């Protein structure tokens, strides 16, 4: 069962930007695309653990600030030829409010 938690207003996340949600299991990065979709990923690049929330967001991807791995926001997959995957969490926007469902296998910090 999906357990939705309200985490804040959409306007509090910049377009093509990201904010961090702290959890006991580690940080989750919540991204907002140009068209106001939101995606949530563990804030750890599969490459060397870089904080994806600090990266540049373009279309539905983010570039890790440490070594430029590009990660698909929807799947958490690194864009080929790079390999690796970051754990994703369901996220949605309703009436300008962002909801997150933290998947239990969450981030190991």
């Amino acid at each position, binding site marked *: 069962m999906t357990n939705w*938690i309200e*985490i*804040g207003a959409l306007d*509090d*996340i*910049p*377009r*093509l*930007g990201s*904010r*961090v*949600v*702290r*959890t*006991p*299991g580690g*940080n989750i990065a*919540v991204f907002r695309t*140009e068209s106001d979709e939101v995606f949530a990923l563990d804030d750890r690049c599969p490459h*060397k*653990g*870089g*904080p994806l929330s*600090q*990266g*540049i*967001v*373009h*279309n539905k991807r983010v*570039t890790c*600030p*440490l*070594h*430029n791995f*590009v990660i698909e926001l929807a799947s958490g997959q690194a864009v080929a*030829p790079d390999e690796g995957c970051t754990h994703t969490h369901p996220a949605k926007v309703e009436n300008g409010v*962002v909801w997150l469902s*933290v998947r239990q296998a*969450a981030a190991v910090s």
Partner: protein
Amino acid sequence: MLDKVTKQKLVVIGNGMAGIRTVEALLERAPDLYDITVFGSEPYGNYNRILLSPVLAGEKTVDDIMLNTVDWYEDNNITLRKGETISMIDRRTCEVVTDAGDRVPYDRLLIATGSNPIMLPLPGKDLQGVIGFRDIYDVDRMIKASTDYRNAVVIGGGLLGLEAANGLMKRGMNVTVVHLLDTLMERQLDPVAGGLLRKSLEERGMVFKMPAQTQAILGEERVTGVRFGDGTELAADLVVMAVGIRPNFELAKKAGLYCERGIVVSDTMQTYDGRIYAVGECVQHRRQTYGLVAPLFDQAKVCANHLAMKGFATYDGSVTSTKLKVTGIDLFSAGDFSPGPDKEEIVLQDANRGVYKRIILKDKKIVGAVLYGDTIDGPWYFQHLRDGTDVSHMRERLVFGAANLGEGGVSGQNSVAAMSDETEICGCNGVCKGAIVKAISEKKLFTLDDVRAHTKASSSCGSCTGLVEQVLAFTLGGDYSAAPKVKPLCKCTDHSHDDVRRVIVEQQLKTIPAVMRFMEWKTLNGCHSCRPALNYYLLATWPGEYRDDQQSRFINERVHANIQKDGTYSVVPRMWGGVTTPSELRAIADVAEKFNIPTVKVTGGQRIDLLGVKKEDLPAVWADLNDAGMVSGHAYAKGLRTVKTCVGSEWCRFGTQDSTGLGVRLEKFMWGSWTPAKVKLGVSGCPRNCAEATCKDVGVVCVDSGYEIHFAGAAGLHIKGTEFLTKVETEDETLEVIVALTQLYREEGWYLERMYKWCDRVGLEQIRKRVVDDVANRKALFARFAYSQQFAQTDPWAERASHGVDRNEFAPLAELELA
């Protein structure tokens, strides 16, 4: 997605490298636009024709050189009709006709029929055992002959002939090469290099008969020998004709398409019939035909762009380079090296070492290069040749190569062939030679970009680029695809940095989306490469008007601190000219203790770095530093960094001027400015140069009679002393020249291009003319810099620490306590 019925039909005639490379590029750009059918008369998928020589020599197998297997066509929904030949193009009905009479309609047609070996019209040319050297079938026949027979004659001492001869020799045959002229590979080599090549091939057992004209091939059913113009004869069981290739354009000509020495195409790779495109060895473009692989890749890209209907790209010809694929012989040639009254030559000849280098210059630029024995610098010369770099400032040392000019990177090792597989090529990403070779062969890589993407080699600092190109050339055995002459800004566009900067001004574009729309960006929001570049260009072009886009800033510039490997940040307050005070030091010490900052380190730029600061602590750290009078040191910025000084005349017994004071003055005037890449200054009080000013982006060396201004130095990836710009008498003039120079760089530099690279590209004289000689221009540049500074000189730390700018950036959106 369009279904099969409504999709346009693209028919490709020719299943070789050019045709399929075009299809691949097309699929990248518009995967669903066409229903594609490929005709190929050979019974294989697409293979790498340039590697036939290593197959013949037994160094590779046919499987090794396959580029696209039959599965690939299936996976991409391409109909491959191999073993079928097209006999006619019916332009009236827009159909192609196979030799079996089958008619296949097209909306767009791509002709990539390649070339055929030239078979000399000699008596006996149709005897058994007389073959060309063009495809797998020919190679199979040669390999078979080498097991059954002893004596081979290769007619033609060009690239292909020598590779064939080498392969046959490796297979155990006695090989004689017959050449019409007295220089081997005369299209690529001058007589000296040709002579060296001949000597070393003779040492391996190859026999030459040259100059010699073949008159007849002898034999009844199978070849038994060859007769020459002077009447002599030579026994032979195998004759390979490798005198050249001829573009294969019969089909196009029969269809009424205009042909000369090849199918004549425009800059968009279209024939005279706009529906019909042609690429590769079968085409003639601007009077040139090409028989190498690099140009064909350039053509494929342009052609695919147009087929994908995203076309503004044009092909304007290629400069080619060649490397002989004979293991153990190092030979490189590029460009035009025919003698001429307006050309100059630099020659280095060392017979004992077997080294010969000849660089041909015209109008201060490299137009040709022939290297023998030591070819490590081949790609480097070739780069300068393609870029049209003004090389006059390095002319004296040019012939000694990149390493001697401090451009060879820091590894110090330069010969790829001699390296073991474990040798590290890319020091940034720890990629060794073996890994690169493996990726190239297994993943069928051709270009530097491919290698960067797959191995990460050369993708960080780039100082190993030359080495990686060498590994490519070494592994592919020959002419790999070199970077295009005009580099696009990034993969999101085909436009260059210069194009973008020009159009921003001309079209008065003032936002990133406006630039992307106008210049037809291929991606929705660009990427991590182009967005920061565009942000800088707009900021530098429209000071006071453009609103800085924080989301297009790299994280360091967005949060005004440097991200570290663990996600914490480092903080460097400005210390003007490297001068500090007890109270500043006390404040730094207090901050370090208060926020448990684990490391405090003195930097190379005469400042103090606080490392390991948590992101959420940054505003509070800055507030405390601000309270003690300190501001951001911009240690994270593509902007003015440090001004390093020595103590100068105020204290030093040798000091000639107040170097510290001048340094502080420069820093106070210039801080806060954004530049294409970082800018570091140095001011030394006397020629002993304790501030190491002559390896900075801009350096001042004070002398008794005034101030020497230097620029374009580097002491990082590359080590390079500065260029002398000018000497002035007063501090005021020094400031004016340096500010004007920086402004010119701000207006013309490419994003991430350091000042020394910019100087290399634009030329020292050009810069001196506009900054030093043209006084009015200097004053105008100075005024523009000063104007933009009024918007730039706000301390970003204070804005964030006390004025609530970007508050969201430093706090989490939410804190969850999960069960």
